[in-house]
């Protein structure tokens, strides 16, 4: 019974890793590729580590497997965020099927200033004052 669970976990984990690599090949642009690789690979490693912990069932190995899972969960999203952000601002093209982009109008490529879009609404509602410069 436990062998069956361990086997299922390892196969599911490797399938998720395989999906991540197929995703890199198939997906159309940088950001969607980041989606496929980081998350599917993180889930794959998690499943394999759970299977390893169940197989050895010793305190030291369970602790190490847990530590690996925690480190993966801490580092994978940071790496994905940094690569995706750098790629976006360097100017990698979004896929032609992208339906909306609320960031582009708020970003100033000259000053690298990123507005929130909240202040424009406030500005729209604000009444003009005498002290305002023209």
């Amino acid at each position, binding site marked *: 019974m436990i062998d069956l669970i361990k086997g299922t976990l390892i196969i599911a984990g490797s399938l998720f890793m395989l999906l991540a690599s197929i*995703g890199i090949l198939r997906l159309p642009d940088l950001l969607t590729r980041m*989606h496929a690789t980081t998350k599917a690979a993180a889930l794959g490693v998690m499943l394999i580590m759970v299977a390893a912990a169940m197989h050895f069932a010793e305190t030291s190995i369970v*602790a190490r497997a847990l530590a690996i899972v925690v480190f993966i969960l801490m580092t994978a999203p940071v790496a994905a965020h940094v690569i995706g952000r750098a790629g976006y601002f360097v100017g990698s093209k979004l896929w032609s099927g*992208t339906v*909306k982009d*609320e*960031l582009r109008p708020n970003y100033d490529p000259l000053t690298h200033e990123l507005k*929130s879009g*909240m202040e424009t609404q406030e500005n729209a509602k604000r009444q003009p004052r005498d002290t305002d410069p023209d």
Partner: protein
Amino acid sequence: MTGAIWNLLLGLAWVMLSGDFSGLNLLVGLVFGYISLVLIEPQLASLKGYPARVPRIIGFVGFFLKELIQANLRVAFDVLTPPWHMRPGVIAMPLNAKTEMEITMVANLISLTPGTLSLDVSDDRKVLYIHAMFLDDEEGLRRNLKEMEHRALELFR
């Protein structure tokens, strides 16, 4: 924080006194430590809120794992079938998180769930820009993200 340290100390004391140095026994010790902390919570101000936080953390981990697997399967389906079902786009999410630490946690959690990737925070820290893979149901996605943020912030406050 004091609650967590006391819980750990009580768990270790249980392991020492029972003389059985195994992971399972430590878990038993932690559970008994937690129960005793629940019982003395009304008498100690420094423990306030700790007992309520533990089930919340467990609930959050469950909720997060459910989201992780569900969304991973969706991305997997789209990668494997030839036509693209995805409608990617960048959306702006207003943040309830105030401090840098909270924003980091929320952004990381959003990056971890498949289908959403946090791109950047606006300079005034009010809006998080997120690249989402499935924008068919934008309202539903925003509601999901808000629920995730709300649950994550509950753990820290």
